């Protein structure tokens, strides 16, 4: 039981981080129909920016803002100057995915070329250990969990109660129809990439904090979790992404406690292939008209 509970605690933190990351990832897919496989590389680059700010004596929680800005700006630039121009050329959709793989290599290994291959860690304390309901969590983990929860509630508020959020949902449902109904889709797409990029940067930094030590290629396999969480909840569905991320995050960490932790990605893998084979539109979704 204690193994279960301790892994559950760790799983909840991982799940919260994954939820932030997946919501950003799925929002990008929703408004531009791009599977941005370079997402992990922007996460880790953001984490390193936070790390260097932290190195200069700034508190890690303030340095986090540097990571958020990096993620937002890098994602916006990526969409504005790479993905959008490629999409305008009317090439096969797979072309943009291949481009995103190329960008992932440039982002990840460009970073590695600059920072080297060594592991680094944030200069911050783990905080007190807290016990409740049998779970044992460090202060650091609780803060990460709190940040993620606040951000997820914020995203919910944005999508549900603001004009911007409604316009984002309209754009993702049908871009042409939204444009014809007076939504400034270009602006909405740009804003979505800024917001999702900020989520990416935030997720990257707290992922690195949660991992303790990290290096340039640490986020390379994160794409497996992102894809599994997104497809479980339905591609392009922010609420589905939250559900998928919590399921995948908890399942991988709990399974890691019982089988070899090296195999923890297997759960995500099985889920992903199962979803792709049987329900590529998500657990709750149904096929789209086009």
């Amino acid at each position, binding site marked *: 039981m204690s193994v279960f509970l301790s892994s559950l605690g760790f799983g909840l933190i991982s799940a919260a981080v994954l939820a932030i990351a997946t919501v950003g990832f799925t929002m990008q897919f929703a408004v531009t129909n791009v*599977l941005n496989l370079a997402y992990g590389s922007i996460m880790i680059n953001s984490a390193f920016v936070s790390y260097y700010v932290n190195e200069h004596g700034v508190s890690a929680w303030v340095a986090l803002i540097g990571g958020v800005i990096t993620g937002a700006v890098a994602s916006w630039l990526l969409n504005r100057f790479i993905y959008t121009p490629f999409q305008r050329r009317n090439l096969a959709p797979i072309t943009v995915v*291949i481009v995103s793989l*190329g*960008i*992932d*290599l440039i982002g990840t290994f460009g970073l590695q070329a600059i920072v*080297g291959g060594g592991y680094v860690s944030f200069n911050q304390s783990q905080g007190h250990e807290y016990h409740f309901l049998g779970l044992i969590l460090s202060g650091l983990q609780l803060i990460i969990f709190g940040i993620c929860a606040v951000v997820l509630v914020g995203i919910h508020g944005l999508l549900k109660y603001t004009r911007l959020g409604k316009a984002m949902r309209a754009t993702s449902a049908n871009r042409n129809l939204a444009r014809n109904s007076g939504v400034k889709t270009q602006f909405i797409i740009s804003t979505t990439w800024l917001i999702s990029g900020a989520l990416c940067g935030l997720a990257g930094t707290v992922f690195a904090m949660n991992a303790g030590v990290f290096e340039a290629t640490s986020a390379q396999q994160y794409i497996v979790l992102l894809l599994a969480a997104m497809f479980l909840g339905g591609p392009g569905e922010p609420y589905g992404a939250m559900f998928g991320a919590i399921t995948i995050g908890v399942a991988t960490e709990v399974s890691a406690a019982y089988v070899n932790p090296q195999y923890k990605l*297997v759960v995500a893998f099985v889920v992903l292939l199962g979803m*792709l084979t049987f329900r590529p539109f998500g657990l709750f979704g*149904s096929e789209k008209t086009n």
Partner: protein
Amino acid sequence: MPSYGFYFAIILVYGAVDAMACLGLNFEFGVAGISNFGFIIFQAMGAYTAAVLSMPNAAHSNGGFQQYVLGWHLPWPLPWIGAAIAGGLLALPFVFLVGKRLRGDFAAVGLLVSAVLLNLLVTNYVPLFNGAAGISLVPAPFQSIWNTQGLGYQFSYGAVATILTIGVYFLVKRLTESPFGRSLRAMRDNDIVADSLGKDLRAQRTSVLILGGMIAGLSGAILVGFITLWAPSAWGYAETIVLFAAIIIGGAGNHKGAVLGAIIVPLGFEEITRYLPPVGNPELVPALEWVAIGLLIVLFLWFRPNGILPERRRILSHDKNDPATLAPPETGDLAREMSAAVPDDLSDDHSDALIKIGNVDRLNFRDLLRLGEPVNDHRVILSTNGLTKTFNGVTVVSDVTISINQGRLTGMIGPNGAGKSTTLAMLAGTLSPSSGQIFYEGRDITSLPSNKRALAGMVRTFQLASEFKKLTVLENLVSAIPHQSGDSFFGALRGKRYWGAEDRANIERAKDVLDGFGLFQYADAYAGGLSGGQRRLVEIMRALLAEPKVLLLDEPMAGVHPNLAHKIGDQLTRLCDSGMTIVMVEHELSLMDAFCDPVIVLAEGRVLAQGTMAELRLKEEVVEAYLVG
């Protein structure tokens, strides 16, 4: 000098292995359009299989310092053959992923993730292939009777590898240049349309993945026999991206381009970095190598998306060796002009008006399209019972019960969102109904897949442009002809001697149709470069060559110049007189007036009325729902 000799032998082996792998991937990606982001696992499978088939039993040899399965100690060439088979078998689980319905990019990430996970599993599960440390001391072929360190052995190894690669080159070329290859390229350009013309996407993709897997497996076997070790670090998922970079740079769809790409990227990078002095941190050079590969991919896709050696345009309209089949003299220039043009430049209405459907009245549709003797008994050939379609809880088509009479041109009209196209798509099998049945020639075909419906004689066209862009106009037409003996994997393997004469006859048939519709001068132009109206005509001609009994047209006149629309209408009427049944979804009432009888009116997913246009104009609810608005 001897050191150079060894160096060249090594280059020869690596070059042959890389070229072979690129040929396999190019066949999958460049020809058939399957983005196999997990290609490297097939090579790894071959390498491991060849290793454990040629190695002695793990328990009784090498002091047991490594663990692995099998250990059958088989003599060459059995391990290599086993490797190819294993590579092919590995394709089977992925057939479900690349099957019919899944988006290409979704299938691609599925394969990518599979590659990541298989690597993880092999790394951590030691008893299979010795885990992260990998397998070493793999016996080289003939090592007991030949000094494998000698120059003679190494060059012979390179020669064998090169010969096998040349063999693979001719194999994939033979398949690509066959009617089967044409179907694969059609599937690559637009799989839903290829399916609607009767192509079995799952069968095509299965055979391509198996062959690609076998080629990759063999390349892995050749590599492992030479370097005598194999470990998970050699086949990280990113290695597939290197091969993709090679194909994109060389020219996807062009087999010579694949070989060139293999020489430039994997081979070039290996050999260049071997002699770089160590600078900076130890990760710097490999990291910059990956950055360079990423940059090459992005820059090439932007500046030269077709690669250094682009896919060749196939000229079918005339035989080089037979002057009698030469096209009219003005054709050449125009065709060249067309193919050079950027697609969108030509799609304007003005050029449509110039199309003359000159000779079409002389065409004998019945013979040309193999329609058989006209029956025209106007019996019910196609009917539905309570057809309903729901998307996300929204009912788009509700309880549609209609009958289509043989030999008639039935129109289907209704305001936007009335469910016309959805109904047509359900008739053709592109969408499956939520409930209700469809009967064709007295048979319940509700669950018959769309490609089988096409082969049974129900062929559809699409509302949006659906030409196979990188097939020529003539290829578009010929690809639709059903029951071609060269249009299967094994038929294509038997070579041109088996299918050549039949294919020439098919080409002549398509040329006649093309001539009849006044587009002969564009025979050898890429279909993607035509104007909107011309593409519509190509689509209709292509559907006709699929030998339909029932032709389902989804707004065939949309965006077509009115003059041309009426010419098309006249021909459709003639087709019905020749015994064909046509269902046409259309917006334009004047066309309905002129050509369609009867007309079915749909509104909000329901059948509102049916009858002749004259009858419909008298019905108040129809006038209200549609005719006025």
